[in-house]
């Protein structure tokens, strides 16, 4: 059965492009448009990996990861932040929150797929 990757981004176009790359590589894809939706979808279960934007309305990506790590009793799947930001401070904050990786947009499909494969294998 294909591993499900949750793509959390407020841009429908980004979700579509990331989703297409992952689907082509054999993954199943679920979507959420902000940190609130993403957290709810993740807690519903069945997600093997998360690709998450940072700058989103309602709840940003790092806040989502911080809340999940603080509240979750079970082990969470690996989370890769995918964002335009590259500041060392933000990268460190995501790592401290429990994220597994950080990718700076524009995303390279082959790099992203390889990372998801590595983290879900």
């Amino acid at each position: 059965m294909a591993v499900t990757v949750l793509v959390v981004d407020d841009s429908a176009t980004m979700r579509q492009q990331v989703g297409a790359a992952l689907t082509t590589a054999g993954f199943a894809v679920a979507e959420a448009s902000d940190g609130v939706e993403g957290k709810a979808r993740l807690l519903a279960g069945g997600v093997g990996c998360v690709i998450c934007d940072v700058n989103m309305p309602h709840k940003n990506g790092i806040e989502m990861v911080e809340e999940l790590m603080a509240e979750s009793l079970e082990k969470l799947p690996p989370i890769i932040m995918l964002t335009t930001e590259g500041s060392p401070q933000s990268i460190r904050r995501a790592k401290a929150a429990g994220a597994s990786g950080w990718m700076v947009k524009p995303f390279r499909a082959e790099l992203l797929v390889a990372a998801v494969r590595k983290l879900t294998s």
Partner: protein
Amino acid sequence: MEPLDVVASTYLACLLDVVREYTGATPTSRPLSANGPDQDTSDIPFATLVRFGEERVWGSSLFVSDEESLRTLAAGDVDDPTDWLGELNNQLVGRLKNRLLCRSVSLHVLPSIVVAGFVKDRGPAAGWVVEWAGGRMTACLGVTVAPGVSLAATDDTIEAAPEGSLILY
């Protein structure tokens, strides 16, 4: 260089990089006319705004383009041109944030919003028309730098992760 010029020249460099990234070609740019919009408004262009700021530097980035141009600026399918224009604007401001880090500026960036049609009164903004094979876009930067702030490079060792890079912890 004056602080406003530092932000404006960095913004323009980021703008050209974003267009180059998605078209694969080197775009041309020219300053926007001071007399108002010089993009044909008959096709009802799409417009998005991204606001950014910190204590000493704040402002906004306005993108205006049309559907046909936006499709040439996409790496894949685009079902919603306005959504894609907002994402491109967000990617530009993200690059601006990354490049101002070495000047001790750390911008907070808000999610993009859609604005209706072309904004005829741009206010105190710098603007550029960027053109490439198959498309064009207008970008306006409105920015304020607090009095006494120089924006000189303070720490060359603060380096943002480059675009397209991946770090696994």
